[in-house]
């Protein structure tokens, strides 16, 4: 009970921070829209290869939602690093607050912002002509996949923040992880058209799990329940990893 209340209060704080940084808010909405417009122009002719369904925007929209989820929460650890450096984390730790709530609130916040972001992206995609084939289910599939991926990435990012304790190192590690994860997935390219080795790598890439779930749902195909379970497992894994890293950080003080 105390845990839930603590998470709730800290979550409110995270939202307050998000809302008071309007630039971030604008960037996190404008950026995916730009990607979508750019990619649909750049790769517009790609549909001639087949395997992309009716239109490229239709194919791209769920992928962009997932990509934004990854980037949006990849830098979540920066907030934790700031709070550590400014002594805010220590101030919280000197209260009886449940320790793990400090991390769980951040991961939950990432899931939520990513969810909101996905809604906006889908809205814009629909204006550009994309059509969710299974209505509400389509939306749910994209949002859940994006939120789970975002939560896991936020966990990894927070863990990196604690382990490296330096912004530059953290960014280097995360950039190095995120870009290959995107290009080694079916986000921009249909799976049938990939070389076999990338198809194999995809099987182990959480970004591809998320893209497949989101796209499957968006097209009204089945939900790929086992992929969803795997993705939830990935989110939990990194959530726990961040919590463990945080415990270690407290013990070395």
């Amino acid at each position: 009970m105390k845990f839930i209340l603590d998470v709730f209060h800290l979550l409110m704080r995270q939202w307050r921070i998000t809302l008071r940084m309007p630039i971030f808010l604008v960037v996190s909405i404008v950026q995916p829209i730009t990607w979508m417009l750019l990619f649909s122009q750049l790769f517009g002719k790609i549909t001639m290869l087949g395997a992309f369904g009716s239109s490229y925007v239709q194919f791209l929209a769920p992928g962009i939602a997932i990509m934004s989820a990854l980037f949006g929460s990849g830098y979540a650890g920066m907030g934790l690093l700031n709070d550590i450096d400014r002594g805010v984390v220590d101030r919280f730790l000197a209260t009886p607050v449940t320790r793990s709530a400090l991390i769980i609130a951040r991961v939950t916040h990432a899931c939520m912002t990513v969810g909101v972001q996905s809604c906006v992206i889908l809205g814009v995609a629909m204006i550009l002509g994309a059509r969710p084939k299974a209505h509400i289910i389509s939306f749910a599939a994209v949002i859940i996949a994006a939120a789970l991926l975002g939560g896991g990435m936020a966990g990894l990012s927070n863990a990196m923040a604690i382990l490296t304790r330096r912004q530059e190192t953290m960014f280097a590690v995360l950039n190095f992880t995120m870009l290959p994860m995107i290009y080694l997935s079916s986000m921009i390219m249909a799976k049938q058209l990939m070389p076999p080795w990338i198809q194999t790598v995809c099987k182990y890439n959480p970004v591809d799990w998320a893209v497949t779930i989101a796209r499957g749902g968006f097209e009204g195909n089945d939900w790929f329940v086992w992929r969803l379970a795997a993705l939830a497992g990935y989110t939990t894994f990194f959530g726990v990893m961040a919590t463990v890293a945080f415990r270690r950080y407290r013990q070395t003080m």
Partner: protein
Amino acid sequence: MDAINVRDLKKTYAGGVEALKGLTFSVRQGEIFGLLGPNGAGKSTTVRIIVTLSSATEGRVEVDGVDVAADPVEVRRRIGYVSQNTTVDFLATGRENLHLQGQLYGHSGAALDNRVDELLKLFDLESAAKRVTQTYSGGMKRRLDVAMGLVHRPKILVLDEPTTGLDPESRAVMWRELERLAKDGGMTILVTTHYLEEADRLCDRLAIVDGGKIVAQGTPNELKATLRGDIVQVEIAVGHDAEAAAQLLRSTPGLSNVIREGQTCSAQAEEGAHVIPKLIAALEAAGLPVSHVAMSRPSLDEVYLSVTGKSFTKADAAGAAGPRGPVPAAMRTAKPGAK
């Protein structure tokens, strides 16, 4: 029962820094206890162990009878902590900062709202309560820090250099408030500070820490009483060898604890008025013209100087490194319980 009891506290940081080498002191209920010492002495380390943010390598700490290692959560409920640097949340208003702090202690509803209002008023932050703290001055942030440490009405308040960086006026206000909390509110206060004069005036008792050990402990008057006689200071004219003057002082009968800081030599004299004329004559005879002479009763500065070997301002600027001065035998060892 003591409010805070620290026994043989040792702390070695990962990486091998031995920050505390066996620290013993106790803070009584309802008193203001000061922890003084040069940079790197171990004040913050001690404080962080007391408030459960760090763990001891060896030794025992009890807060209000509760062992910090055995029941940290209970200790956190009873203690309020204000850290050395400001920890306000930049993107939240003053009121929001206080409110969240209260919520984390499990408070809510009208009781919390009232408490927040009360603290905003007490620390003169009412008019800025709705402003994001990014726009606060250093003094306002510091006052908010202290207010946050009090939101759950702790029995014991621990403050790490609450007045550093404040102007003299704000420092005075801060101390008045701390005094009021102790005298009227019955609160116990442990405070670290670099302002000896304030510590002298406002602390009931204090301890001087140096190199991870307590080097002196007692009431301000007790500490000053350990230095008999007067403090004599002579300043040698610029361009002349002050070290030679210090040597001369060291060989002068009736002077002890000679310390040189730049062109100024200071020493303890059994009878200052007696020794000064002879001293000036001797220095002039040795070709060391004196540009300034002063005599004073020992203050906490001299106590500090004699136990840490560093004058306060110098120690402040130069960090932990510095020459060890002579230490009066009576004050050399930490005497647990010496009152």
